[in-house]
C-alpha cells in the first residue's frame, strides 16, 4: 500500500554538511538522517538558479525542454503540459501537500505553485515570507537595514517568528492530520534558508566564532576562466551592507573580513536549517510514521562562498550546481525498527558533535532530473517512460533515469580505492 513520501528541498544549500565531510558546519540532524540513508556525493542540478532548477526536477525534464532559463514562463503554457512528480503521486492515490518554497513562486508556477494540478490542497506559504527582504537587520548604529549578513533577535521579527519556523510548524500539523486520517501522503517541505538574506536567529553565530572562519581555498578569479563563465554576483551587491562597501563591478573583490562574515553567516544559517529539519524528523517519529515514510533530502542548487572570486549561484561551477541528495527508505536503506523506537530524535547542534556516517553512499554522478523516476520506483509506482528525443507533446515522461539501481550496487568503497575522501570522514 505504498510508502508515504516526505520530500525536503532546501534553497541554495551546497553540501556543507557533516555527512558530506565538511569539518566546519554543525548539522547533526541532517547527519543523523544520512546515517539512515543512501547518500549521493556527486549530485548535480540542471541549472544553478531557483525556478529553472525546481521546474526541471519537479517535471523530470531538462531546462531545454521546460524552456525555462529565467523566472518568467509557466511550462504548461510556454513549452508543454508536462506532468509533475507531485501530480503523478496525486494521480496514484496520494494526498499531495506543499509547505514553504517547493515550486518557485510567481509566473514559473502560475502564481499557484501549480495548484490544483500538483497539490491536493492549496499550498502553504509562511505569513512572514513577505518580510524576507524588508529592513529587519539591525546595524551597528542600531538602525534597521536590508543586509546580506543578518543575524536577528527572533523576538524582534514581525510576528516574532521566521518563515522556516512557520513551515516546520505547518508540516508537523499536516503530519498529525495525515496520521489521524490514515491517509497516504506526499508532503513536500521547502525551506528558505540559507538563501539570501542570511537571516537567522543570532544565537547560531556562537557556533562559528569569526576567528575560526577562513576564506575560500581559491578566492581569486582563475586566470584562464572565460569571462562568459564568470557570474558577477549582482544580487548580493544590492544588499545594504554590500552596497556600503562600494566594491567595483564585476570582479570586486569583497574585503577579506566581509568574505569571512558571509561564510560565517552561511554556516550559521545552515545550522539553523538543520534544527528545523531535526524538529520535522522528530515529529515524524512522534506520530509513528518513520517506518512507513520515505524521506528525500536535497536542494535546488548550491552557492559559491567566494571560490573563484564568486558568490551566489548563477554559474556552471560545481560549487553552484552540486547539491546534497539522500534517500531514507525504511526496509531498504535501514532495517525497520521496533514500534516506538525513535529513529530521528532531535539533536541540538549546540551540544552535539560530529560522528555520524552515511548508511550507504554512492559517488556515482547523478542529476536532480532523476528524482521523479527514482521516487516513483521507490514508492512502487510505475516508473515514467524515458522521453523521446523531442517530448514537448508528451505529458508524462522523464529525461532522467532512476538511480535506484545505485542503491544496491556494491559501491566500490572510496576509502579502499584511493584513501578516504571527504564524505567518508564524517
Amino acid at each position: 500500500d505504498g510508502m508515504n513520501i516526505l520530500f525536503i528541498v532546501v534553497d541554495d544549500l551546497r553540501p556543507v554538511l557533516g555527512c558530506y565531510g565538511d569539518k566546519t558546519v554543525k548539522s547533526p540532524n541532517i547527519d543523523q538522517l544520512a546515517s539512515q540513508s543512501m547518500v549521493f556525493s556527486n549530485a548535480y542540478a540542471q541549472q544553478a538558479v531557483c525556478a529553472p532548477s525546481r521546474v526541471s526536477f519537479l517535471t523530470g525534464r531538462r531546462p531545454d525542454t521546460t524552456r525555462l532559463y529565467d523566472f518568467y514562463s509557466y511550462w504548461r503554457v510556454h513549452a508543454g503540459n508536462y506532468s509533475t512528480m507531485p501530480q503523478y503521486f496525486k494521480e496514484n492515490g496520494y494526498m499531495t501537500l506543499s509547505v514553504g518554497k517547493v515550486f518557485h513562486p510567481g509566473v514559473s508556477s502560475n502564481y499557484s505553485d501549480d495548484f490544483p494540478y500538483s497539490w491536493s490542497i492549496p499550498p502553504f506559504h509562511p505569513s512572514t515570507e513577505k518580510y524576507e527582504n524588508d529592513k529587519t537587520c539591525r546595524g551597528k548604529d542600531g538602525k534597521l537595514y536590508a543586509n546580506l549578513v543578518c543575524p536577528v533577535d527572533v523576538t524582534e521579527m514581525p510576528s516574532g517568528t521566521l518563515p522556516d519556523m512557520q513551515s516546520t510548524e505547518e508540516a508537523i500539523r499536516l503530519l498529525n492530520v495525515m496520521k489521524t486520517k490514515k491517509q497516504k501522503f506526499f508532503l513536500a517541505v521547502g525551506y528558505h534558508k540559507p538563501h539570501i538574506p542570511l537571516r537567522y536567529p543570532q544565537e547560531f553565530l556562537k557556533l562559528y566564532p569569526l576567528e575560526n572562519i577562513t576564506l575560500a581555498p581559491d578566492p581569486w578569479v582563475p586566470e584562464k576562466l572565460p569571462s562568459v563563465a564568470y557570474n558577477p554576483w549582482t544580487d548580493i551587491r544590492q544588499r545594504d551592507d554590500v552596497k556600503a562597501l562600494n566594491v567595483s563591478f564585476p570582479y570586486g573583490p569583497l574585503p577579506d573580513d566581509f568574505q569571512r562574515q558571509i561564510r560565517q553567516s552561511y554556516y550559521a544559517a545552515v545550522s539553523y536549517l538543520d534544527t528545523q529539519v531535526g524538529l520535522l524528523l522528530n515529529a515524524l517519529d512522534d506520530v509513528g510514521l518513520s517506518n512507513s515514510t520515505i524521506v528525500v533530502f536535497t536542494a535546488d542548487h548550491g552557492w559559491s562562498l567566494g571560490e573563484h572570486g564568486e558568490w551566489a549561484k548563477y554559474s556552471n561551477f560545481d560549487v553552484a550546481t552540486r547539491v546534497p541528495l539522500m534517500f531514507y527508505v525504511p526496509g531498504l536503506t535501514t532495517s525497520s525498527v521496533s514500534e516506538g523506537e525513535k529513529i530521528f530524535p532531535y539533536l541540538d547542534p549546540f551540544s552535539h558533535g560530529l560522528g555520524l556516517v552515511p548508511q550507504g553512499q554512492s559517488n556515482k554522478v547523478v542529476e536532480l532530473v532523476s528524482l521523479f523516476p527514482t521516487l516513483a520506483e521507490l514508492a512502487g509506482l510505475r516508473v515514467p517512460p524515458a522521453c523521446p528525443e523531442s517530448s514537448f507533446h508528451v505529458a508524462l515522461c522523464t529525461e532522467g533515469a532512476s538511480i535506484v539501481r545505485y542503491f544496491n550496487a556494491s559501491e566500490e568503497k572510496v576509502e579502499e580505492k584511493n584513501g578516504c575522501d571527504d564524505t567518508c570522514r564524517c
Partner: protein
Amino acid sequence: FNEEPVAFSQYPRPADAPQWNSDKPKLKDIRIMGYSMRTIDYRYTLWVGFNPNNFSADFEDVHAGELYMMETDPNQDYNIYNNTSHGSLLKKIL
C-alpha cells in the same frame, strides 16, 4: 551499469563579458548558453551561441570552453580547455 554516469547542467548568459544582467538574463536577452558535462573525472563546458526565439543552441558558434580534471584540480581553478584537444568530448556532449 557499465555506462559512465554523466550529469548535464547549463547556464544562460546575455553577453561574453559580465554585465548587470549576467546572473539572471531574461529569455529574450539570452545570447549564449553554457552546457556542462560532468563525470567523476572531469567537467567539460562549452559556451555556445543561443537563439532565444527558437531555443536553438549553435555548437558551431563556440564562444569559450572550460575543461577541469577533478583528480588534479578538484576546485576547478585551472582551465585546460585551450591546451588540450577535446574533439571526443565535443562529440560526447553533442
